[in-house]
């Protein structure tokens, strides 16, 4: 065998391997995308086409009718007002819940890193535990407590629950971010006589944007996608969109309109998908920080 043919053979094998790798990657990507494709296709078909056609067939005459129905007149039980009111509930819920939990987490993180005191590590461990508890353990007492203070089945009640159990996560994010900031920043401010909040707002907050984005995205995704708290602590007109979606799909009165169900699925998923597509990098960072680092 000549030298040339060896090189050629190696090149060929290398080439073959690359092709194989790309084939795998593309095939798997297809598998991951399939459910989304099926859901979107179904939502664009009319009910006859669904009954007579195949899961994966292209919609012959794509129509947004099902989307419109899912939005404004899909039924939950006997009430047929669509997803829109519940979508709005989730929106109303998410703004204060994300804002408050992020703000409190930022201050906590700062206090635990650049303004330490004796026992601050113990406090951190104490808060951190909240990241790991299975929420089943707090459902009964929380339901009783919300009832006792008159917040059962109210938006403020659900906001409170999300803030309370969001704080451990946001505190963890900010604490881990602030640990990496040079201590000199804060020392300089202290020497200049700046107090706790002055240092936080003037020195730390302006350089915390990356972490704020991560925390906001994390909280937004989690609260938007929450089902357990929504279904336990609210009912009727007050439920968030995930609970409403589940109710729409499980409403058995009338003809089953799969296209409307799937349109409702897409509508429910849109906000978090949008965030993921627009800010995937930060989304991933949050996932990693929220689960890996203690």
């Amino acid at each position, binding site marked *: 065998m000549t030298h040339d043919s060896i090189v050629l053979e190696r090149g060929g094998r290398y080439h073959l391997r690359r092709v194989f*790798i790309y084939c795998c*990657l593309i095939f798997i990507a297809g598998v*991951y995308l399939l*459910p989304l494709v*099926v*859901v979107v296709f179904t939502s664009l078909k009319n009910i006859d086409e669904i009954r007579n056609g*195949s*899961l994966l067939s292209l919609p012959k005459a794509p129509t947004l009718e099902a989307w419109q129905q899912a939005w404004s007149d899909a039924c939950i039980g006997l009430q047929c007002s669509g997803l829109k009111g519940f979508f709005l509930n989730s929106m109303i819920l998410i703004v204060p819940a994300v804002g408050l939990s992020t703000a*409190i987490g930022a201050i*906590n993180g700062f206090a635990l890193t650049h303004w*330490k*005191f004796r026992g*601050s*590590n113990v*406090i951190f461990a*104490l*808060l*951190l535990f*909240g990241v*790991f*508890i299975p*929420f*089943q*353990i*707090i*459902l*009964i*007492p929380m339901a009783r*407590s919300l009832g006792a203070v008159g917040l059962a089945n109210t938006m403020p009640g659900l906001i409170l629950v999300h803030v*309370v*159990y969001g*704080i*451990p996560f946001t505190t963890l994010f900010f604490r881990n971010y602030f640990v990496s900031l040079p201590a000199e920043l804060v020392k300089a401010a202290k020497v200049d*006589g700046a*107090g*706790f909040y002055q240092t936080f707002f003037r020195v730390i907050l302006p350089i915390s944007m990356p972490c704020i984005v991560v925390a906001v995205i994390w909280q937004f*995704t989690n609260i938007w*996608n929450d*089902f*357990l708290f929504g279904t336990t602590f609210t009912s009727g007109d007050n439920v968030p969109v*995930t*609970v409403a*979606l589940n109710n729409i799909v*499980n409403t058995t009165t009338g003809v089953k309109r799969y296209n409307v*169900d*799937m349109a409702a699925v897409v509508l429910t*998923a849109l906000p*978090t*998908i949008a*965030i*993921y*597509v627009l800010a*995937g990098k930060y*989304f*991933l960072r949050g*996932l*990693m920080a929220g*689960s*890996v680092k*203690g």
Partner: protein
Amino acid sequence: MSTTFPVLQTAKRGQWREGSGVKLWLARNASQLALAPSVAITLLAVYGFMVWTGVVSFTASKMLPSYEFVGLDQYWRLWSNPIWRIAVDNIFIFAILFIAIASVIGMALAILVDQKIRAEGFFRTIYLYPMALSFIVTGTAWKWILNPGLGIERMVRLWGWDSFRFDWLVDPRFAIYTLVMAGVWQSSGFVMALFLAALRGIDEDITKAARLDGAGSFQIYRRIIIPQLGPAFLTVFVILTQQAVKSFDLVVALTAGGPGNSTHLPATFMYMQTFGRDQMAVGAASAMMIFMTVTAVVTPYLYSDVRKQRDDA
């Protein structure tokens, strides 16, 4: 840990001239005061509620809490409840398969994506997007896809394979595996991300040296790279275990515990007993079991992590 009290020092320098006693105290303890509300609320809503649930599990509470203590009766009732036994069996099946399959697929994806490919970001984005979805969305979508009447089964039959059967969703023996499928689809991309981060952290010099010594790719992965992923495996294991034990939404949306209670998991059992059947104390007992399981998995992990951090510091 910082041993100085800088605020105190500046105060000594006389910069807090106007500082009355109260103001000085506030400034000196600003950090503690800022944390106080969070600590108080955590003590109540995490630790206090844990104890509360524990207490309820020893009482005769039904729809309303009662504080008539019955010892371990509710735990006995729990473990003699056939649905709880199903839920416990299911969580083992679900957790083992979910963790194993998601780990293997996640690892394979990470290795594939790590082959210096073009459009890496594009592929990563696709593999990870299910993680942005609610389990209710995932469950509803898969319920439609797995629906025997109009889903995959029918699709394959329309392709010409008339006797094709895929009715796991409505078969009590197999419905639990549909939860595994949907769960793996949702979480394996995240496992990939975790492994990918670990792969990127591995020193390339060693693998280069091995390649020069004539080691093939497969050998390099098996002998050098994968053994170095131990910590990542541990992280994946802890996260997926937690996810499995807490699984609630996915079951509600995909199978609602059915057919015939065959797909209940501890979390759905807890919810059903407490809020559906007014068996609050049994629900509390099951919540304690879930809590103890998660704690048993997480505590050693957290402990080692905290120790590692202390050593690093």
